[in-house]
């Protein structure tokens, strides 16, 4: 694909993101309650002070002008002050975001590592015992609530067997200087192998909880598209050429079958970023999800607004990434 076409595709994302910001702004503007009232609470501020704060926040301006101010600020990453933390929203979010991204990536890795090989084997050995076990397993995975499965894992591996920590991101005495914000990378950069392993142990249960739930659907999709690919003429032709079974299945069929898998993986990663609030709460994971849950309970609107915008943007970008991957997998697809 040409760089020009890529740039064109990126430009097409702008209207989508604009639409999202309208919705996010409207969400804030239409929410009942006066932000000034919320910020000042029951304090003894008089009407003059209230009016002055309202002017400072630009709330006295017409709604259209407020929107463009919001948009301009959002573009520079300025979402205002977090009511609760009394610090810029973006600073608070950026502090928490790496933990969520790291957890999501590890969960995604686990999901793919489990789902793709299982899906392929289930398709190749269709109706075998393994296929049936995988089918039942994925049905359980799809229907089991994540928080319940997470609690079960905590009870078994942390409470009863004492093998893994109950919550948190890293244990006492293992803290290292955060440079990238990704604890697995930072511990390695600090040369602390023991801390790296400790961080890995902390990550294992939440990542497995998220990853297995995601792998269930991913495996079904991989199995179905593999069955479809295996019935194609090009598979018969590849076999007729005398290629090994591994090459026929692992290359000729799999490369074509991965397209639906990539789509679902991208969508799931997007919803994982936004949807792991519950898992982060269950495992005491200091990520964005937990931050947003706390913000919702404390009516911390600026923070919720910024988080929603970040979630939506990530989602859009992930879908764009999936589109890019299609062109690699199937040269017939053009952006």
């Amino acid at each position, binding site marked *: 694909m040409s760089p020009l076409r890529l740039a064109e595709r990126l430009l097409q994302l702008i209207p989508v993101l604009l639409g999202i910001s309208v919705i996010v702004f409207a969400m804030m503007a239409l929410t009942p309650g006066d932000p000034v009232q919320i910020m000042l609470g029951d304090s003894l501020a008089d009407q003059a002070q209230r009016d002055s704060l309202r002017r400072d926040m630009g709330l006295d301006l017409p709604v259209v002008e407020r929107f463009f101010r919001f948009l301009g600020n959002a573009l520079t990453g300025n979402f205002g002050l977090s009511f609760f933390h009394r610090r810029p929203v973006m600073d608070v979010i950026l502090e928490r975001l790496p933990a969520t991204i790291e957890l999501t990536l590890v969960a995604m890795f686990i999901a793919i590592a489990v789902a793709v090989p299982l899906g392929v084997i289930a398709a190749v050995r269709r109706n075998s015992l393994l296929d049936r076990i995988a089918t039942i397993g994925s049905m359980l995975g799809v229907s089991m609530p994540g928080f319940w499965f997470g609690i079960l894992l905590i009870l078994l591996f942390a409470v009863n067997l004492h093998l893994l920590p109950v919550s948190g991101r890293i244990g006492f005495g293992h803290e290292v200087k955060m440079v990238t914000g990704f604890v697995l990378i930072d511990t390695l950069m600090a040369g602390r192998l023991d801390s790296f392993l400790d961080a890995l142990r902390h990550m294992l249960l939440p990542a497995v909880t998220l990853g297995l739930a995601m792998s269930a659907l991913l495996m079904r999709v991989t199995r179905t598209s593999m069955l479809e690919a295996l019935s*194609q*003429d*090009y598979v*018969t*032709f*590849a*076999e*007729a*050429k*005398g*290629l*090994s079974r591994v*090459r026929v299945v692992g*290359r*000729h069929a799999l*490369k*074509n079958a991965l397209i639906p898998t990539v789509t679902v993986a991208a969508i799931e990663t997007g919803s994982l970023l936004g949807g792991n609030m519950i898992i982060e709460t269950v495992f005491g994971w200091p990520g964005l999800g937990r931050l947003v849950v706390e913000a919702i309970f404390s009516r911390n609107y600026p923070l919720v607004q910024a988080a929603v915008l970040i979630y939506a943007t990530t989602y859009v970008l992930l879908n764009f990434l999936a589109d890019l991957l299609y062109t690699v*997998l*199937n*040269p*017939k697809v053009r952006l």
Partner: protein
Amino acid sequence: MSQLLGIRGLRTTFPTRHGLVRAVDGIDLDVRPGECLGVVGESGSGKSVTFLSVLGLVRPPGKVEAEAITFQGRNLLSLAPTEIRAIRGRDIAVTMQDALTALNPAFTVETQIVETIEAHEPGIAKGEARARAIEMLRLVGIPDAERRLASYPHQFSGGMRQRVMVAIALACRPKLLIADEPTTALDVTIQSQVLDLIDDMRVRLGMSVVLITHDLGIVAERCDRVAVMYAGQVVETGPTAEVVAAPIHPYTRGLLRSMPSLAHLDEPLVPIDGTVPDPTRLSDGCRFLPRCPHAVEVCARPVGLRAVTAERAARCILAEVAR
């Protein structure tokens, strides 16, 4: 009588919800060195399945049984999977009906030719395999072969794509090419080009060709011998010229009469009455019986392939008369 490929008593069945489908039911067939054998029959008569069975490419739950399938004196039925894989593509190659679906859309032509060469000549240098790929593309008449190696199948025209598939099939200089409906997916003007190419390659590489088609006209033009199939059985075999000039089996006669001919444009085409029998409910007797204008009582009993001359045979009581 020398033979390259000998098929004896081949039966291929597929269990379905409606009963057992006997797709191929007791086929005896020989392919001789250097010849072009035409296999004619309508869709579902078992032409393609016969040769997929020979190569062990019938997928489960399909089941293949045979008294013997010999290729160059080796019984393919007794070979291990790796041994039969070594024969596929190297000794017996296949081209399929539609190159658009037979070539993998996700890989370049280079990958698809080179992997075939590498599968049969492990350890071949990358550059050498690539040079062979270019040579094959040139041989089948693809212009600008070196540059086209990097193209994907969908970037070729229909005729060129078919040529690419032939190039892949012939990359390892097989002794036998099974060309399964090589022209059905093509425009008429391109058809004869592809058939000429296959003919030309047969002579140049000294290989045998099995031309599977439903077009008796193509067989009459191109093939030394013909086998006519009906409902999973061979109903008539013999030298093409003799079979076309004096068909014995009523089905062959029907096929010839239903074929348009430029020499007899004024004669009406006569279709064969009736339809092909349900493959789950085949009778033990002659399968053409319900549609046969010459049917008599004995036709309901099992009828074998009867020799007419040393070269000809027909699965019909009329064979006795012809003899």
